[in-house]
């Protein structure tokens, strides 16, 4: 009996510790949430007076357009990265090329330096091509780093899928791409979900490239939020409300695919 009691006590202790840890992790987001419902007068402390004014005032600003730009740029970049990167990853995983390791390393080169190193080349090239302040320009930039992520992540997922499954499909008459589409890809759904979410988050949270390569037409939500930091004072209410709205798509996307996400993040780590 005493042993069972101490085990239960340990379990409760672990639960309390987990809850405390969760609160610590969630504290900034919860703080942001409560701040977004505060009036301007109470935003820097004082009695909490609830209001929706911060959200309604966003509607009249350019924020909805920036939010839409973020959605379009991030989803397009993610979809294109998956469309182009998944077959590339499969080819690099299964193909018989002699230099596939070298090719894979070259794919990763865009992630080997901090973003600021690519700023001037991107700015000059985009100015020349007329891509400054266009959503399509942002998609191109996001593709450069999303593709590296897709190729490297999916390559390890494909490596974890036994060859024998494809061989069985080939014996049944499927071609290389038939086996890929009908056998390998369905087995990789958790990996696709995890990779897609990571790509989306990377594009969605980009601030630096959107800052340099946009003006007003293609401005994204993270840049629009910083625009609320005015010289005559920071609009904390709008910053908080916009911050909460920016959290929502990633939260929704993650909740919808969390079943795959957990499996996806843990799969591919061990080769059979």
């Amino acid at each position, binding site marked *: 009996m005493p042993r069972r009691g101490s085990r239960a006590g340990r379990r409760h202790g672990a639960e309390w510790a987990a809850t405390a840890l969760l609160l610590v992790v969630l504290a900034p987001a919860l703080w942001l949430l409560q701040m977004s419902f505060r009036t301007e007068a109470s935003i820097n402390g004082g009695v909490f007076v609830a209001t929706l004014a911060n959200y309604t005032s966003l509607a009249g600003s350019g924020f909805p357009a920036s939010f839409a730009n973020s959605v379009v740029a991030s989803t*397009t970049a993610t979809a294109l990265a998956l469309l182009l990167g998944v077959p590339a990853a499969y080819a690099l995983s299964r193909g018989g090329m002699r230099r596939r390791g070298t090719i894979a390393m070259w794919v990763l080169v865009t992630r080997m330096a901090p973003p600021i190193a690519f*700023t*001037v080349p991107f700015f000059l090239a985009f*100015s*020349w091509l*007329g891509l400054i302040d266009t959503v399509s320009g942002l998609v191109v930039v996001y593709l450069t780093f999303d593709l590296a992520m897709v190729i490297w992540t999916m390559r390890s997922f494909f490596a974890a899928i036994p060859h024998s499954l494809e061989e069985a499909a080939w014996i049944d008459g499927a071609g290389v791409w038939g086996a890929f589409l009908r056998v390998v890809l369905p087995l990789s759904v958790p990996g696709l979900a995890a990779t897609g979410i990571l790509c989306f988050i990377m594009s969605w949270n980009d601030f630096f490239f959107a800052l*340099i390569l946009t*003006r007003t037409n293609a401005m994204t939500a993270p840049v629009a939020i910083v625009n609320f930091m005015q010289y*005559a004072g920071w609009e904390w209410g709008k910053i908080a409300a916009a911050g909460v709205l920016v959290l929502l798509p990633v939260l929704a996307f993650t909740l919808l695919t969390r079943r795959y996400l957990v499996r996806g993040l843990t799969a591919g780590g061990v080769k059979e």
Partner: protein
Amino acid sequence: MGGKLRRRAVITGAAGMLALPGKAPAAVGAKPLSGVTLNVSCWNAPYPQFLKKYIPEFEQETGARVVYTTPAFPIYNQRMDIALATHSDAYDVINVTFIYIGRWVGAGWMTPLDPFIANPKLTPADWNPKDFLPGIEAAFRDSKGELCAVPWIADIMMSGASRYDLIHGAGLTMPDTFDEMHKMLAAVSHKDGLPGFVVENHYGWTFLGYLQGFGANVFRAPPHDLMPVLDSPEAVQAAEFFATIMRDYGPRGALSYTYDQVTAALKAAKVIYSTENEAFVTQMAQKGAPAAPTCGFSLFPKGPAGRFPQIATHGWGIPAGSRKKDAAWQFIAWAMSEKLLLRMFREQGWSSVTRRSIIDLPEFHAKLNYNGFDVAKIYLETLNLADKGYMAYRTVPAYPQIDRQINIALQSVISGEKKAAQAMKDAQHNSLEALRRAGVKL
């Protein structure tokens, strides 16, 4: 021509998967700037927002199309720094930011404007360039003395009290000297639980009026002799004074106050007194602000060596990379014309004007009178002081590095981590190192 065809071919080929916005062919008309598109940008402040409402008139008058952007201050500066450094033609008219004057003008990234001002085809005869206050304009002159921007704002440092009633109640007036200021803060601070004094934690800006007021300076004789002199006895004395008033009369966490927090505290009457930018302290007088009925204003106090209120200015300039310089100048000449500035003052209340003819108007003084305090008079007196040239340190391209050292030194003195003498000695040593790294000959 070839370049354009190549560019078009690249875009057409590469963007097949994505629709790119196209440009409508320019309409040809009788107006002087028909078919010209001007890219104009300034950080988001009241003046560029006021100006936005008049831009359709310029477009209507000239036939030009103006693409006008006003991002937040940090975003604007980051974008411009890259555009100017790459000699890009992405912008035709930009704001020359005060803290970047040394860098942008010093590097030759801005176009000298004197030839445009002198050209009667581009500048109306009644434009009157001498109407701009020379003390402000001086900040935008390059090493050859050529004007590289036309100032649209002069943000002066002045004194503001959110609870002048407490000061008056203690039998005192707005302090005119550092000694009076210390005496006043000792009399009113922490009465009613209110801290007496706070300024923003950018001490490379907010401390400089005190540094110079005690007879010290950042450099020996800027802009020509850039030997730092931060460890002089006067500089140490200034640091001790400043740290004492911050420590003894400041709020809890005074070291963490940014400009918006100082402004919010003053507006809410949660701190009694500050020496800050006019743009911040005059917000106390806004309708509905708790401090509005009790606020008071005065000149920045003087020290043993005199009065040195800091002045920040921003101006319209033309990037060296612009390909539409004549049209760009016509925009600047229009935006900074006396006629338009007077309309902006009368119709929208723009008050930080840089033209003497407007500042001298009785209606200007009447409008900037808060609780009997003539802020227009304070404004003009402060701008006249700038003629002494004490702001020259600010135009040194390497000043941002020294600014950082001053911040570090003052933080360590206010927090009690170091004595003033040691902190300023360290600042001097580190500034010397920073200047040598920047290639400055000492």
